[in-house]
């Protein structure tokens, strides 16, 4: 019953998407305004089918209907309700079903937002997005069908992956990442529409930018939450391992970040159009590549990859999207000609251009390191992987250069900078940067790369804060407004700029936290009997004893530890090892004590119940928590930049009428 309903809904979605894609693209190419209504209808039908199919699956999971194939794979009567619902995205088929629903929501949201626009662009864009929808609903209906029937019906299932039941982050991290991944479909659709028409007006460019900012924000949040989850759950003491799965989410983030910057040049100078559009296409291609890499099992081995039909299907789709993108760029690209020159070598547009090249270089190196083992194994049959040192050695210099440009770009004016301006703009921030390094060295910190990062971070922070405060100071002087009002007014007049700077501050925080936690880590291992202790940094860790417990879905053994820090603080930490009913291997849970500037991280490696001994791994990571604490800045900045500004636009228009020919003030442009 459930199986039939689910399959029917997916097939309905497939039909709606296919019909809408054909009507949309055909209608867009022939400028048939009437077609839009029809396409909007198919978008709604697609949404209903996809969301319906997901709700059906959730119903099957919650009611433990083990006749449904997917439920029999990931369901278990012992799993708590929250994790039962979450298991919708805990395995392959379910996560692709979930992909489909998010895709439908995005397409629907885009259709709602642009239903009153001149119809050609929305028609083409919706057509392209629905074509992607065709692929995903085909995947769900065929190779990755979660609604298959199981006979005989098993009485119970294995439950989701134990690692996925261990932490509440599992509830929010994957949806965030999917919202980021899938959302790149919208900019892709817009870019395809622009290329099909061979023109990209400023208005349509603003649409492209807004619809990139939304998935970009989700992707940023998803990546940071993912590293947090890895840190809090996996227990190897790190948060980023250059794992193919992590790289898969990082690559589209890099290209879409580059896009958000090159779009500014496009807007100001009417140049770099083709490059900007290409970045949109690349972001989408990389999300598809990422989904392919994480979902097809290709990274277990090239040889096991053909065992499921999903891998080859994905590969074909990837090839089609790539071919279409290249073809469109080759045929239509020359139409997106620059309408203005790029500025002088010392200008903001040049800084952004260099930033884009650095992002492209970073994308290339990470992509190369990620797919190199696949290519090598496919051709020579030798199984290898690329070690983290490769990524670190390549990414660190590029990352530091990007950090440096974050301070240079905002300091430079558009167009051309005089030597006088340069001196004025750089003197104080550079001084602060040097001062930071001197203070760090005086405090006993060593390590060239870390010190360089801290110094540059100081430089960038000063530049960013100054650029945020400068327009407010002008207002305070000229209009006599109080400080807070001046900040708010100037900020809401240049939302994207101000929001962007808030995000920059978040990025600076991440750089500092990563540099500190990688460079000044301390680590030890110890095997303790009750009453015995070891010392790590300012912490003394003493074993009180082993404790056992039982949860509905698991048993666990914890090492109870008394932790004293140097200032007399007292804490109890209990790293544990969980034994899940249906899994043979134990899964550890680290115990973490987070202080303002460092984390004490303890894992239980092994224990002996008879001798009452516990073997522990212990680390101190300075500042690591600041990586996740930067999240509010990312979200706040993006919200500030993306917030609809209808009222402001009207106010601005009125202002522009009253002051004709006014030169742009420093705060007015982003």
């Amino acid at each position, binding site marked *: 019953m459930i199986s039939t309903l689910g399959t029917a809904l997916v097939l309905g979605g497939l039909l709606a998407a296919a019909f809408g894609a054909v009507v949309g693209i055909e209608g867009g190419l022939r400028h048939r305004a009437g077609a839009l209504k029809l396409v909007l209808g198919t978008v709604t039908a697609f949404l209903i089918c996809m969301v319906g199919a997901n709700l059906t699956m959730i119903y099957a999971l919650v009611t433990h209907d083990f006749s449904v194939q997917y439920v029999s794979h990931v369901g278990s009567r012992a799993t708590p309700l929250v994790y039962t619902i979450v298991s919708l*995205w805990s*395995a392959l088929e379910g996560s692709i079903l979930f992909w489909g629903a998010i895709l439908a929501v995005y397409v629907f949201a885009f259709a709602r937002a642009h239903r009153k626009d001149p119809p050609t662009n929305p028609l083409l864009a919706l057509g392209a997005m629905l074509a992607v929808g065709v692929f995903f609903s085909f995947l769900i209906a065929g190779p990755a069908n979660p609604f298959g029937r199981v006979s005989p019906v098993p009485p119970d299932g294995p439950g*989701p992956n134990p690692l996925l039941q261990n932490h509440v982050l599992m509830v929010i991290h994957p949806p965030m990442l999917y919202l980021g991944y899938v959302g790149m479909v919208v900019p892709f659709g817009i870019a395809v529409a622009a290329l099909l028409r061979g023109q990209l007006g400023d208005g349509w460019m603003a649409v492209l930018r807004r619809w990139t900012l939304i998935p970009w924000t989700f992707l940023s949040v998803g990546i940071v939450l993912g590293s947090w989850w890895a840190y809090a759950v996996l227990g190897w003491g790190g948060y980023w391992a250059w794992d193919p799965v992590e790289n898969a989410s990082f690559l589209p983030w890099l290209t879409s970040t580059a896009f958000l910057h090159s779009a500014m040049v496009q807007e100001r100078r009417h140049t770099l159009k083709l490059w900007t559009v290409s970045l949109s296409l690349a972001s989408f291609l990389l999300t598809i590549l990422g989904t392919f890499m994480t979902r097809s099992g290709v990274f277990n081995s090239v040889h096991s990859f053909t065992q499921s039909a999903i891998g080859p299907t994905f590969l074909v789709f990837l090839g089609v999207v790539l071919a279409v993108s290249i073809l469109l760029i080759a045929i239509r690209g020359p139409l997106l000609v620059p309408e203005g020159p790029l500025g002088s070598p010392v200008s903001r547009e040049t800084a952004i251009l260099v930033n884009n090249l650095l992002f492209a270089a970073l994308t290339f190196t990470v992509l190369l390191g990620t797919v190199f083992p696949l290519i090598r194994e496919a051709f020579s049959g030798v199984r290898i992987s690329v070690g983290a040192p490769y990524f670190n050695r390549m990414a660190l210099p590029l990352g530091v250069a990007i950090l440096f440009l974050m301070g240079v770009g905002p300091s430079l004016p558009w167009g051309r900078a005089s030597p006088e301006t340069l001196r004025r703009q750089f003197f104080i921030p550079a001084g602060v940067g040097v001062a930071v390094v001197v203070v760090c060295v005086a405090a006993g910190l060593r390590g060239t790369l870390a010190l360089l990062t801290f110094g540059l971070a100081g430089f960038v922070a000063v530049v960013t804060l100054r650029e945020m405060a400068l327009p407010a100071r002008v207002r305070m002087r000229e209009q006599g407004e109080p400080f807070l009002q001046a900040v708010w007014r100037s900020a809401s007049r240049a939302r994207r700029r101000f929001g962007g700077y808030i995000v920059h501050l978040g990025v600076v925080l991440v750089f500092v936290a990563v540099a500190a936690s990688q460079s000044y880590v301390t680590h030890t291992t110890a*095997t303790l009997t009750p009453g015995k202790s070891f010392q790590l940094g300012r912490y003394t860790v003493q074993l009180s004893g082993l404790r056992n417990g039982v949860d509905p879905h698991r048993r666990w053994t914890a090492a109870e530890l008394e932790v004293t820090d140097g200032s007399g603080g007292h804490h109890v930490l209990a790293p544990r090892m969980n034994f899940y009913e249906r899994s043979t291997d134990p899964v550890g849970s680290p115990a973490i004590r987070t202080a303002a500037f460092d984390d004490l991280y303890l894992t239980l490696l092994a224990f002996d119940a008879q001798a009452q001994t516990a073997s522990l*791994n212990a680390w101190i990571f300075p500042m690591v928590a600041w990586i996740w604490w930067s999240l509010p800045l990312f979200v706040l900045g993006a919200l500030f930049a993306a917030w609809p500004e209808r009222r402001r636009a009207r106010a601005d228009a009125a202002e522009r009428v009253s002051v004709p020919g006014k030169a742009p003030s420093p705060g007015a442009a982003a």
Partner: protein
Amino acid sequence: MTPTTRNRLFALAALLVAGAGLAYVSFGNIGQNLVFYWTPGEMLAQGSKAYGPTIRLGGVVQPGSLQWDSAHTHLAFRVADSDKAGAPSVSVVSRETPPQMFRERIGVVVEGTFDKSQTFTSSRLMVNHSNEYRPPKPGDGPDKWKTTVSAPTAEAR
């Protein structure tokens, strides 16, 4: 040739040079940071080529080969292609505490280096049934995680 065209050609040439340099550095760097997946038999067959690079040695802990030193800090054992008698095997030393599941006959992946003394020095010991250690992520099916979940241990620094 107009100045604009010439500038564009210059820019293009500069980009090509930069791109070629980047590719050169990347490939060179990759070559130095490859991690090989070998079984003891495969590794021994490499001869002196196996001395030096990082290797993930996959196999089973040979029955009867487990040896602790008196202070229980150094662990020595042999990893073999299979638990059949006579399978090729390599002697491994490790200074870290092995994970809870560690015992004879279990599948392990040992990351470390091999040298002329024919001893494999482990920097990371993983109890595992697959050849590759990878923290399972959302979306890995039950069929997959069963073979990849292991008690992760730290890299000995």
